[in-house]
C-alpha cells in the first residue's frame, strides 16, 4: 500500500509494534487488528518489564518503612508521581493523587468537593456526551444532597452547544464536569475556551481526560483546569491505577474521601488529624507497581513525542474516515472538525453487534454498543455504534483490513 509507506517517516511503526507483544497475536486464525483502544490500550514491553521487575526485586510497602527496600520503592513511587506531574505540567507533585482510575477520581471529587462546596439547590453541570462515569457520580450526589443536575446539549455534528452552555452557567452552578475527548464521537472539546468561559462565571471545572491523555499533550496549567482525571490502562499503563490532578487550592480544602492507613498524621479515638497532600487522599496500600508502570508508559509516549503521536493519529483518522465513509449505507456518528482518532459508525438496517461479530471473525477487534454513553445514543436515536478507536501503533494497512472486513460484513448481512 502506498498509504502505509507514506507515513513510515513520521513514526517507526515496525519498531513500535515490536514493543507491544500482544499485537502479534492471532485471533480466529487471523492476525489481530486491534482497534479497541478507546476501551483499553495494549502495553509496551517496558511497562510489562517494570511490573515484573517490581515483583521480582522491589516489592515492599511504601511510606513509613525504615528498611532499605521500603525506602527504595517509596522513592520510586514518588518519582512516578513527579513523572505524572511533569507530563500534565502540574505545578506541584502533591497535586497528583493516585487513584484506581478515572471513575475513582471522579467519585473522589464528587464526594469530597461535593461535601464541602455543593449544597441543596445548587447545580452541577455535565454534558450530553459524557461517559456514564462522568454522569453517575454527579447524579447520585444530586439525589443524595438535593442538588440539581443540568446537561449541556450536543449538536448534530457532535460538538458541545457552547451558546446553551453559556446560559446554563449561573451563580447556582458549583461545578462543571465535562470530557476533553468524547469516547464515542471522538470530538476534542475546546477545553481552554470552555474553562475560560466557566471561570468567567466563577464556576470550577473537572475535565475527564481518559480519552485525551493517550492521544495528545495536556497542560493543566495552560488549560487552567481545576481538576483533570485519567486512567492508566487507557494510556498504555497498567489496569487499576488512575490519576486525579487537582489544584492545590481546592485539594487543600477538601475533606478526605476514603479514610484509613496512610491518610493520617495522628489518630486518637477522640479525633484524627489527617495527613497533608497527597497522602490524605490515598487511603490504604496503593497500587504501587501500577503507579510506577504508569510513569513508564508516559515516558514511553514522550519518547515518541505527543505531538508526533497526535499528528500520526490524525492521519490514521483521516484515512479511515475516507475509506469507510464510501461504504454504501455507512454513516459516521461524530463529525466534529477537531477529532481524536475515534471513528464511530452505523450502517443502515444493520445492528452494530452483528457487524462487530463478523469483524471479530475476521480478526478485527472493535467495540459495539452504547459505549457507556446511553444518553448520547438516545440523542442520536440509535441503539449503539461500531467504534474503531486507533492508537499510535495502528497502521494504514490495518485500516485497509478494517475496510475490507466491514464490506464483507455488510455483504453478508444485506
Amino acid at each position, binding site marked *: 500500500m502506498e498509504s502505509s509507506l507514506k507515513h513510515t517517516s513520521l513514526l517507526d511503526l515496525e519498531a513500535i509494534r515490536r514493543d507491544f507483544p500482544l499485537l502479534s497475536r492471532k485471533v480466529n486464525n487471523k492476525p489481530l487488528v486491534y482497534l479497541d483502544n478507546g476501551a483499553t490500550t495494549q502495553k509496551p514491553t517496558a511497562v510489562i518489564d517494570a511490573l515484573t521487575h517490581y515483583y521480582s526485586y522491589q516489592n515492599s510497602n511504601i511510606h513509613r518503612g525504615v528498611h532499605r527496600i521500603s525506602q527504595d520503592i517509596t522513592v520510586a513511587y514518588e518519582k512516578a508521581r513527579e513523572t505524572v506531574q511533569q507530563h500534565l505540567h502540574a505545578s506541584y507533585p502533591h497535586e497528583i493523587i493516585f487513584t484506581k482510575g478515572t471513575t475513582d477520581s471522579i467519585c473522589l471529587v464528587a464526594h469530597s468537593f461535593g461535601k464541602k462546596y455543593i449544597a441543596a439547590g445548587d447545580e452541577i453541570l455535565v454534558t450530553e456526551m459524557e461517559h456514564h462515569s462522568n454522569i453517575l457520580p454527579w447524579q447520585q450526589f444530586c439525589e443524595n444532597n438535593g442538588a440539581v443536575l443540568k446537561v449541556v446539549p450536543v449538536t448534530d455534528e457532535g460538538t458541545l452547544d457552547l451558546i446553551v452552555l453559556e446560559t446554563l452557567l449561573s451563580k447556582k452552578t458549583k461545578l462543571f464536569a465535562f470530557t476533553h475527548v468524547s469516547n464515542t464521537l471522538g470530538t476534542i472539546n475546546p477545553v481552554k475556551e470552555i474553562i475560560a468561559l466557566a471561570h468567567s462565571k466563577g464556576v470550577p471545572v473537572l475535565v475527564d481526560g481518559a480519552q485525551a491523555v493517550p492521544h495528545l499533550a495536556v497542560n493543566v496549567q495552560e488549560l487552567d483546569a481545576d481538576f483533570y482525571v485519567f486512567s492508566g490502562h487507557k494510556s498504555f499503563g497498567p489496569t487499576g491505577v488512575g490519576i486525579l490532578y487537582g489544584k492545590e487550592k481546592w485539594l487543600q480544602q477538601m475533606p478526605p474521601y476514603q479514610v484509613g492507613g496512610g491518610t493520617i498524621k495522628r489518630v486518637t479515638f477522640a479525633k484524627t488529624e489527617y495527613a497533608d497532600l497527597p497522602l490524605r487522599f490515598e487511603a490504604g496500600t496503593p497500587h504501587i507497581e501500577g503507579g510506577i508502570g504508569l510513569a513508564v508508559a508516559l515516558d514511553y509516549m514522550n519518547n515518541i513525542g505527543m505531538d508526533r503521536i497526535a499528528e500520526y493519529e490524525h492521519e490514521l483518522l483521516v484515512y479511515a474516515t475516507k475509506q469507510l465513509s464510501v461504504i454504501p449505507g455507512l454513516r459516521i456518528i461524530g463529525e466534529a472538525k477537531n477529532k481524536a482518532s475515534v471513528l464511530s459508525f452505523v450502517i443502515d438496517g444493520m445492528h452494530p453487534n452483528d457487524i462487530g461479530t463478523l469483524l471479530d471473525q475476521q480478526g478485527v477487534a472493535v467495540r459495539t454498543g452504547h459505549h457507556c454513553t446511553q444518553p448520547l445514543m438516545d440523542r442520536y436515536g440509535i441503539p449503539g455504534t461500531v467504534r474503531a478507536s486507533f492508537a499510535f501503533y495502528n497502521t494504514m494497512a490495518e485500516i485497509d483490513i478494517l475496510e475490507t472486513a466491514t464490506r464483507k460484513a455488510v455483504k*453478508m448481512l444485506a
Partner: protein
Amino acid sequence: MNIAEIEKEIEEEFSFFEGDWEAKYEHLIDIGKFLPLIDTHYRTEERLIKGCQSQVWLHSELKNGKVYFTADSDAIITKGIVGLLVRVLSGHTPDEIVDANMDFIDTIGLKEHLSPTRANGLVSMIRQMKLDALAFKTKV
C-alpha cells in the same frame, strides 16, 4: 422428532461448515431471516430477555399440552441463534423442555465463537424458555 433428534439434525447441518466461518454465519443469518416473527404486541419490555447486548423478545404459549415459542431480536445473528433455540425447544412438553441439555450449542461452536456478553444472552434466553415451560407445567 424429539428434542435430541432435532439437536442431532442441527449438529449435522453445522458439521458442513467446519472451519468455514463465513458459511456458518451466513447460515445463521438465513435462520434469523426465517424465524417466525413474534406478534408486535408481544415485543414489550416485559418479554425482553435481560443479559443480551442486542434486544431479544420471547413469547411462550401452551397448546394441547405443548409449549410453543416465538421470538425476535433487533440483531440478525442473535436472531439466528434464537431461531435455533426455538427450533429445538418449540412444540414439546414442559417436561421435555425442562430436561433438554442443549449441548448442541457447544458442539456447533457457537458458545466458543460468540463473545461472553452474547453467550450470557444465550444462557438467559435458554433459562427463560425453561422457566416458562416450568410455569406451564402446573397448567398441563
